[in-house]
């Protein structure tokens, strides 16, 4: 670390070239091996898909404003909710935090120049693009109407939509996940800076390690499943369709063997972000570091053993159902541990409420509800009534949107200054965070009640007595929509007109804050040597707090 104090005080002479102005040609972006540029390209495409999935979501909510299937006829509606699911799950939720924030920050956080396999990193971006384009192409041809779960034999024999093309897109896209996971694991094992021991790593890195394990071990199964589906659909070899000798339940086993762990691909990185935000904005070491780190690993491991809880009513044996219910209850424990530790971290902190911290606090509230309603669904006698209803829809949106999306938004705001070198408007940030929180609850809380009332999911029309709750939900969705559109505006504005960010605007101890904003292409001028624990706010961490305070006063 050259001149640590100077960096932190913001007097640091900024290097002339950073990763953003190091070449402006298209070629310099498309052929880059810089993890930061790749992350930015992911950011742009993933955001575009998020927006697209959001448009589909609003179509769904508009259709459900009235009990009849009037705005969309049911055939169109089926395609709309399928596209919403496919885009959000495979093209947004899975890559969002690992491919954008993980890609950008992982090397910075462990003091590396880049990921261990930079070319593989670029390859995974291209694979993601190819997969995404195929899904888009299928969508423009007329889309797919099987639901994102592709249950057989509907998907293999009965559906007249673009199952193969979409399946191919997801198949290809899976390799992007596998390569990213592989890259992260290799990087964490081999590229840590001197002194960055395993238990000095930020919890964000631990969470990504756990996520990468799941990506590497789980994703091949979905690839195999899609391949089998294709073989049956094209060659008419009986694998899943009982009419030609297959077993439809086999598909569900294979599908959920990946897709349940995939849920953890979608939430573990979010938990990592929240650990960073809670600890840093409390200016205090995180409570129970080892417990949070190992609970991530425990979730990743147990996550592979609970897939059957998606199939409680699908005709699997009673005893299999009981075992899966038991294991599901066990996996609830590590999630509870995390929530307790985050809450305890706040105790005797020095808490400040920038936008990222608002998102983190909202995350805890929503994830709590998402997790607790998961217990409802894991309790097998109750889930017989609840499964395939809006209760499920509400539950997984609490975890996926209330959890992962909020964590992603929090993380994006937190590291925005590092990524772009500019500060966004705190005022608008807070407004949008609050809109998201209120809109989200108004959208999805009524759906718990709808589910208990028995409204099945994937219904284009529903009984008239359920309309009031659906109106609440649609009203909430429009607030949520505004809350998520606002950041597109003020974040974009900040790139051009925002205040210049210092290297470490929050005076946080992570390595990513010990280089300029935006960082140079090689991340650090000199190889950092780590002598402090993660989230070390004490004197020995090398941060010049006094100088930062003087600077803060000078601003006022």
């Amino acid at each position, binding site marked *: 670390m050259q001149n640590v104090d100077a960096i932190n005080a913001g007097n640091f002479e900024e290097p002339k070239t950073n990763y953003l102005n190091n070449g402006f040609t298209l070629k310099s972006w498309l052929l880059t091996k810089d993890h930061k540029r790749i992350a930015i390209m992911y950011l742009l495409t993933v955001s575009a898909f998020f927006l697209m999935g959001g448009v589909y979501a609003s179509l769904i909510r508009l259709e459900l404003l009235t009990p009849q299937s009037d705005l969309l006829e049911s055939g169109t509606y089926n395609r709309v909710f399928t596209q919403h699911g496919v885009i959000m799950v495979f093209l947004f939720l899975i890559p969002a935090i690992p491919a954008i924030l993980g890609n950008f920050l992982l090397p910075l956080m462990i003091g590396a120049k880049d990921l261990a396999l930079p070319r593989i990193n670029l390859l995974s971006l291209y694979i993601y693009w190819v997969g995404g384009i195929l899904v888009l192409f299928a969508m423009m041809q007329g889309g797919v109407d099987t639901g994102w779960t592709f249950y057989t034999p509907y998907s293999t024999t009965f559906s007249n939509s673009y199952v193969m093309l979409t399946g191919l897109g997801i198949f290809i896209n899976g390799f992007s996940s596998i390569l990213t996971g592989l890259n992260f694991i290799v990087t964490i094992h081999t590229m840590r800076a001197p002194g960055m021991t395993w238990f000095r790593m930020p919890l964000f890195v631990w969470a990504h390690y756990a996520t990468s394990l799941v990506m590497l071990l789980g994703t091949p199964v979905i690839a195999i499943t899609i391949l089998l589906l294709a073989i049956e659909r094209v060659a008419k070899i009986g694998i899943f369709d009982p009419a030609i000798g297959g077993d439809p339940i086999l598909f569900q086993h294979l599908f959920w063997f990946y897709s349940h762990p995939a849920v953890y691909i979608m939430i573990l990185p979010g938990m990592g972000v929240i650990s960073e935000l809670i600890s840093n904005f409390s200016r205090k070491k995180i409570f129970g570091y080892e417990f949070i780190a190992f609970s991530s690993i425990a979730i990743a491991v147990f996550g592979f053993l609970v897939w059957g809880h998606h199939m409680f009513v699908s005709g699997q044996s009673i005893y299999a159902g009981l075992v899966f219910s038991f294991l599901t209850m066990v996996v609830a424990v590590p999630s509870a541990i995390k929530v307790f530790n985050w809450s305890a971290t706040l105790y005797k902190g020095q808490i400040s409420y920038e936008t990222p911290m608002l998102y983190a606090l909202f995350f805890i509230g929503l994830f709590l509800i998402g997790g607790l309603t998961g217990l409802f669904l894991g309790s097998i*006698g109750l889930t017989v009534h609840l499964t395939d209803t809006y209760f499920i829809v509400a539950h997984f949106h609490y975890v996926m949107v209330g959890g992962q999306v909020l964590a992603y938004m929090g993380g994006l705001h937190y590291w925005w200054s590092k990524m772009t070198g500019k500060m966004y408007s705190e005022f608008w940030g807070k407004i949008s965070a609050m809109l998201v929180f209120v809109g989200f609850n108004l959208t999805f809380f009524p759906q718990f009640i709808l589910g208990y009332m028995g409204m099945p999911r994937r219904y284009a029309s529903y009984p008239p007595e359920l309309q009031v709750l659906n109106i609440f939900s649609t009203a909430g969705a429009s607030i949520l929509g505004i809350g998520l559109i606002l950041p597109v505006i003020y974040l974009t504005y900040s790139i051009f007109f925002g205040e210049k960010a210092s290297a470490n605007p929050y005076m946080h101890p992570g390595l990513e804050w010990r280089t300029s904003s935006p960082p140079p292409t090689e991340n650090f001028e000199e190889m950092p040597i780590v002598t402090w624990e993660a989230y070390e706010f004490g004197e020995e961490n090398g941060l010049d707090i006094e100088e930062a305070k003087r600077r803060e006063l000078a601003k006022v």
Partner: protein
Amino acid sequence: MQDNSWIPLFPEQASTFAWEVDALYFYLIAISVFFTVGIVAAIGFFVVKYREKEKFANGAEIHGSVPLELFWSFVPFVISMTIFLGGALVYYKQYRPPENTMEIYVVGKQWMWKLQHQTGQREINELHIPVGRKIKLTMTTEDVLHDFFIPAFRTKADVVPGRYTTVWFEATKPGKYRLYCAEYCGLNHSGMGGWVYVMEQRDFDNWLSGNVSGQTPVEAGQDLFMNKLGCASCHAGGPTQRGAKLEGIYGKDVKLANGQTVKVDDEYLRNSILNPAGQIVEGYQPIMPTFKGQVTEEQLVQIVAYIKSLSGVTGTTSTTSSSSSNSMTNSPTTPTNTASNSNATSNAAVNTNRGVNK
């Protein structure tokens, strides 16, 4: 579902286990409220009390506490185990059909429910049942997955092509309840539903007699067996018959040619018709052709009902082998008696509606 309040919160309770599911639901709501309020209150308190006093001041040096970690790992574990056990108890009731049920056959197809009573009445998207009787639905589908869901009864089960699944309930309150398909099945998924009418026994009897019953499933099955499909030429030939003897086999264990032992149940009979070579009974040659593609799901259900009637098993399903061996003593041993016997059993099917099978 007949709740007319402005915002409906709970569906009606209309089956014997509905209150148990609701009790579990309220238990979980209590736990959720306790933890949500507790944690949100703690966070709210910390957030106000420990707000930043001075820019860039540092928080207290607290790194964690192992006793606390163990405490809050152990407590959620214990609570989650109570939830598991509660759920397991309820589930066991929901998914284990009791003895002496009134059986109704259900065939799902895109996008309607076809139902048939033991007495022959057919219904589409409507189900009439008497209050206070244990009803068991034996279900399959002609095409894709469906799911038979009655919220007021708090139960549902997927309907899977190529196999039989069951769901059972005992309605406790006369009324009209919604029936849904809860597993996505394509274009008109949300239109695949209807009503369940729960009636007093007297009204149900009237309803039954007011409906043209046509052939009962057993009679229709007998017709297929004897005439249309020609099963009788091998399976009802007296001492010279080439096919396996069907009288009295239902509910018993048979030894297969490969040495395995299987219980003869609906699923086994169905598979043996569609894929005869799959599970050959010891002592017989694999000469039976497959009937796959020649019989519809409804016809299959009827043939199975007929073969069951040969063992004296009719409208009332017995899940234990003891009761089926009891009734076996009545079953004829000579094929010539079969026809008259099946008439007798189909009469018994009507009787079962008044609970007179035993």
